[in-house]
């Protein structure tokens, strides 16, 4: 069995020796370069744009503006484009650094220089530059596409239940603009060949992207091919088509040769997704013994001027704890901000910061251990779907995590644990993420040279999914991992589930699992029907496969290799397809992944920066396909969320709405020195109700609850409850004088 073994990522050597190819590495003959010019205001319109100097600069081949950009096809809404306005469609400016022109030149330097020569005259309009300023416009969202979650949930009379509760928490929690901040900038290389379009792009979903690109350019989808080679960090910001991709394609059509457009670091921060600022008002009521009576969760997030994009922060309040009365209300408020993008972990990330913090506040109000409060409100079923959870070993996660962490050493009161000049605090939170199911297809081919291959359009975004898919296929066929290849990231391949929303393992993994089983069965049928095969005449269910060989289950020495079987029969390859049908899951259950986070923070009384010195996390994700990639992904997700909690913040200038921190210098992701000891464990029980291979997604649940666990530990250490992220030293500065 290869599943369950800690195999190193199959693409790792290429990343170390430099052979790995990312989108911006793609070289095409005659390729030229494009650079986008961004608006220097956040609200208003173009009064005039003068491109003459840019056009006559050395090497410049074309300058695209609203005046000469070719007409787009379709409508943004029909195509599910990222915003309801195609690039350069008109003279309106809705956010900072919005693309107002594209310069195409022979070299990137020439294009960048000429971009600086494009003279733009603006007519500025009043700007809504913060969520606070936008609040007067807060409203129930009008969904652009089909609703993904309700805007209002009311069950059991929440206001009355809250009013009658013995213990209450009533607090507001805020999260800022958080950027995805991938190392790899978004990029596109576009090439036209006799009416067909080849697109190399940074993508988490090549098939989804193709539908948008083909539609906007008025080209049949089968005339467009999209590749996504290795992706250098995505976290959701490569889930869609951004303006630069469409612009690179029209630029190439206009000038002829292939066009490469690599966004600048600043453009990654300003115009390629983020999680918007969110204000969540939580009211939680409980009986004196901690039994929850009511949760009222009102959430308002900033949304672009042109459309409503609600952030599903109500997810945890609506599904995490046993509460008889629930009120959840989603609103959005109009701001001059670019289109958001799903950010690991949408909804549950910021939502659990608020719910997990409020539960902690409630525990102090009740004088009850915060872990015990969660145990007492444990839920065995999904409260709205009224179905039992499948694979919910959350109580086991609590128990194992508490033991590994040493939770019993926690002082019950805040600001009670001190070590020299350090205040020490313990905090915890639950984690939960619904398990999605999306259609996915893959093929597995067993070849006559003794090798085998997985083919599916999935993108490798750094999670190790190529490796785990190969492990699934290896176990399904009996061909060892070392003889398996995988071809991915190409619309000419069978359509995988998008590589976001924790779908790879569950949905694409199931497709590969089924394809591998089908391929093995097809080869088995060939063998048992072949009089020259030692397996001739056996029922197919009495034939096993291992080490690249089919054998009789009842007499393992009787058998032959796939290679011998295929060569003798002059079959180059046995290729079979597997398809994951989202409706194939067991409909009696609700599905999610679960976990618990326990954190120790230390805060020096003189230099009050939060240091996460120890973090223990335990997850229940069904079967663990690869302990090495799983642990790595969990640790990465915890660091990712810790950065959002402690230092990351994309700041808007309050007067103009322009971003003031669009660079790694100022947008502070964690550095190695910030990362303490991270202990990851799994409560492993295959969940065959969810998927036939028993495994579920991991990439998002690992982030959920980290924010609250840290914020709760900060309160425990200092007695200061920080309800607004990030928890930077300014928010704890008063500790200096209070602990003299």
């Amino acid at each position, binding site marked *: 069995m290869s599943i369950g073994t800690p195999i190193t990522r199959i693409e790792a050597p290429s990343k170390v020796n430099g052979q790995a190819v990312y989108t911006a590495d793609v070289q095409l003959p005659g390729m030229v370069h494009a650079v986008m010019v961004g608006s*220097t205001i956040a609200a208003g319109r173009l009064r005039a744009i003068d491109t003459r100097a840019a056009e006559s600069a050395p090497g410049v081949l074309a300058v695209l503006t609203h005046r000469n950009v070719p007409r787009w096809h379709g409508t943004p809404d029909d195509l599910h484009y990222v915003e309801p306005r195609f690039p350069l469609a008109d003279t309106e400016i809705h956010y900072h650094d919005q693309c107002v022109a594209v310069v195409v030149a022979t070299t990137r330097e020439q294009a960048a220089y000429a971009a600086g020569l494009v003279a733009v005259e603006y007519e500025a309009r009043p700007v809504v530059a913060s969520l606070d300023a936008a609040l007067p416009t807060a409203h129930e969202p009008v969904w652009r596409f089909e609703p993904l979650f309700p805007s209002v949930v009311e069950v059991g009379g929440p206001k009355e239940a809250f009013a009658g509760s013995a213990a209450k928490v009533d607090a507001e929690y805020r999260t800022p603009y958080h950027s995805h901040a991938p190392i790899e900038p978004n990029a596109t290389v576009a090439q036209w060949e006799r009416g067909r379009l080849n697109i190399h792009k940074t993508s988490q979903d090549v098939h989804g992207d193709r539908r948008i690109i083909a539609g906007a350019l008025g080209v049949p989808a089968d005339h467009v091919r999209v590749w996504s080679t290795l992706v250098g960090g995505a976290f959701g910001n490569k889930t869609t088509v951004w303006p630069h991709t469409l612009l690179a394609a029209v630029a190439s059509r206009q000038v002829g040769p292939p066009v490469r457009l690599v966004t600048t670091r600043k453009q990654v921060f300003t115009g390629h997704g983020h999680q918007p600022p969110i204000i969540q008002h939580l009211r939680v009521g409980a009986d004196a013994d901690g039994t929850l009576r009511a949760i009222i969760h009102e959430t308002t997030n900033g949304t672009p001027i042109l459309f409503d994009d609600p952030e599903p922060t109500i997810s945890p309040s609506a599904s995490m704890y046993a509460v008889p009365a629930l009120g959840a209300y989603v609103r959005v408020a109009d701001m001059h901000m670019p289109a958001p993008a799903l950010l690991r972990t949408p909804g549950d990330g910021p939502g659990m910061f608020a719910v997990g913090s409020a539960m902690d506040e409630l525990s102090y109000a009740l004088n009850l251990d915060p872990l015990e409060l969660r145990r007492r409100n444990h839920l065995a079923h999904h409260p709205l779907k009224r179905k039992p959870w499948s694979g919910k070993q959350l109580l086991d996660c609590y128990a194992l995590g508490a033991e590994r962490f040493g939770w019993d050493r926690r002082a019950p009161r805040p600001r009670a644990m001190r070590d020299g000049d350090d205040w020490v605090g313990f905090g915890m939170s639950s984690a939960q993420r619904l398990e999605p199911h999306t259609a996915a297809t893959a093929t597995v081919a067993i070849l006559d040279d003794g090798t085998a291959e997985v083919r599916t359009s999935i993108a490798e975004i750094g999670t190790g999914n190529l490796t785990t898919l190969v492990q699934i296929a290896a176990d399904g066929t009996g061909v060892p991992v070392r003889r398996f290849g995988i071809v991915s990231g190409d619309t000419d391949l069978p359509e995988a589930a998008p590589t976001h929303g924790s779908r790879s393992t569950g949905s694409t993994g199931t497709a590969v699992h089924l394809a591998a089983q089908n391929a093995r069965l097809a080869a088995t049928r060939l063998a048992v029907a072949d009089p020259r095969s030692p397996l001739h005449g056996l029922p197919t269910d009495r034939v096993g496969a291992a080490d690249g060989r089919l054998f009789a289950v009842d007499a393992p020495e009787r058998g032959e290799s796939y290679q011998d079987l295929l060569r003798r029969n002059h079959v180059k390859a046995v290729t079979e397809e597997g398809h994951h049908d989202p409706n194939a899951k067991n409909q009696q259950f609700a599905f999610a992944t679960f976990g618990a986070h326990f954190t120790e923070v230390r805060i020096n009384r003189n230099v009050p*920066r939060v240091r996460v010195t120890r973090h223990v996390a335990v997850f229940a994700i069904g079967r663990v396909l690869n302990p090495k990639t799983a642990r790595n992904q969990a640790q990465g997700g915890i660091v990712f969320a810790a950065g959002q909690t402690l230092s990351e913040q994309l700041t808007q200038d309050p007067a103009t709405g322009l971003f003031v921190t669009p660079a790694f210098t100022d947008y502070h992701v964690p550095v190695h020195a910030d990362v303490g000891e991270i202990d990851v464990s799994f409560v492993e029980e295959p969940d065959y109700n969810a998927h036939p291979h028993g495994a579920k997604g991991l990439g998002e649940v690992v982030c959920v609850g980290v924010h609250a666990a840290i914020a709760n530990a900060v309160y425990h250490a200092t007695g200061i409850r920080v309800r607004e992220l990030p928890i930077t*030293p300014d928010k704890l*500065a008063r500790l200096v004088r209070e602990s003299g």
Partner: protein
Amino acid sequence: MRTFDYTSPRTVDEAVRLLADHPGADVIAGGTDLVTLLRDGIRTPTHLVDVNGLGLDEVSWQPGGAVRIGALCRNAIDDPALGRAYPVLVKALRAGASPQIRNRATFGGNLLQSVRCPYFRLPEFACNRRTPGAGCAALHGDSRHHAIFGTSENCIAVHPSDCAVALLALDAHVLVQSTRGTRRIPVAELHRLPGRTPHEEHALRRDELITAVELPAGPFGAHSTYVKARDRASFAFALASAAAVVAVRGGVVRRSRICLGGVAPKPWRSTAAEEALRGRPLDDAVIEAAADAATRDAQTRPDNAYKVDLVHGVVRQALTELREQS
């Protein structure tokens, strides 16, 4: 293309001659700051004088105990004798940037780096430092990082260097050279407060080149430390920092330097804190009084009032460390 001439002189005389002959020239050494400013169009020199071929990378101990650090010594400098004689300097250097940047950045360049104010670094915003008379967008902007001492209505940016704060605490001088000869400038007089001319960042004349930094002979300096508060554990500019040097004799502080970083447009000496220490034992009450004095006369804005507490904290931490060492 926006072009510039590039010259790589072999001698200091040649370098300063080039600076004298080209009014639009900039000096490039490590390039860790200048290259980003060039890329973003914040600086547009007609000429780049690359001084990396000039040597100037030695640490030389002078007769009498002073030490001269060549202007092109890298910030990654690892000299045990320097660490013993001036711990505050080595700690400040280690607190700055990242190992990769310290391997490139030089002493001279570190002292002359530009402010990190985003309103200066992003051409979308008005900045008096970048364009005299243009106005200061930071005044009505996000001021979490901005100064609480020494500001004017024209500029509220902070000086970003850690190294310069330590050098100020050590009473260091910079040695500069031009075609007219050489001169010494106290670090205390190297950087200018913004006043009405925030674009005049330092006292160097346009054609002068820093050739070395000189630290006075010990033992003052040996009992010293640097404490920095920042947003993450490494690779972030100071929200507030303190360089502290004390000389204790007979149980009381005879002489001290308390200098602050991250809170003023130049490295900021707190004579009030030094006054609070003079002639007193380094005990809890005196440390508290000095930390409090260091915050005196701070002029805060709503977003940066927290820096008062951080100054208190870093000074207290620095003095507490020095007390525990003595």
